[in-house]
């Protein structure tokens, strides 16, 4: 085993000693990755992971750097960006990724991507025609 492998093994033991906890958090993230387009109740997800809601949020943030709610928003907007870039109208894309309110989708989209859905589509079109 070389220096790097030893280092990784030691860090894993130190940072992620509770393997069952890691499994539960990874399961929760996998659930969001798979079912982001459906209504997701984070309280229920915490319960399914056998954790209290507050502990779940804290642990998820420690593992992934953001809360499950923030991560869900990011995943939805990432997928929406892909759909909008492929030509889907913003309203349709919002519904497709699990948003029922188009106005909150618009402001979140701009906040996370720096562009409005319309500006994303315009940039793609300009790229295609240039």
């Amino acid at each position, binding site marked *: 085993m070389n*220096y*790097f492998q030893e280092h*990784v093994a030691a860090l894993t033991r130190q*940072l992620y000693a509770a393997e069952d906890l890691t499994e539960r958090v990874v399961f929760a993230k996998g659930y969001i990755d798979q079912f982001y387009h459906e209504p997701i109740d984070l309280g229920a997800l915490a319960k399914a992971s056998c954790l209290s809601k507050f502990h779940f949020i804290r642990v998820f943030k420690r*593992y992934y750097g953001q809360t499950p709610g923030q991560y869900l928003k990011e995943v939805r907007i990432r997928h929406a960006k892909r759909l909008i870039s492929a030509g889907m109208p913003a309203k349709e894309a919002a519904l497709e990724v699990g948003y029922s309110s188009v106005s909150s989708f618009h402001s979140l989209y701009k906040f996370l991507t720096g562009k409005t859905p319309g500006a994303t589509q315009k940039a793609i079109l300009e790229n295609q025609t240039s």
Partner: protein
Amino acid sequence: MRISLASILVKDQKKALEFYTHVLGFRKKTDIPMGEHSWLTVVSPEQPDGVELVLEPMGFPPAKVFQEELFRAGIPYTAFQVDDIDAEYQRLLGLGVDFSMEPTQMGPTKIAVFDDTCGNNLQIFQML
């Protein structure tokens, strides 16, 4: 301020271009001859306008010592993110890539390390 370039030292630019494009799957973005070397960059096809990786020639002897020691210790020079590390591992193995670390879970990530044939260990990782 934005990060638009990152660089990696390579022993041979021609060989590196071959490995980083044909094996890893990146695309050549810029190739400008500069004396005996080139200003040579590659990008990910998933982010053609994203960060460019400069395949930098070994022009400074002390850097060679640094690169060799890093390689000997098994430390990756840099890391690339993948969606499915097990599939990528199998794909690269099939292309003859030499791994010093098989896909290994480290908490919520899975990492693997391989030889880029140009003097470096590279890491790929997946967020689980």
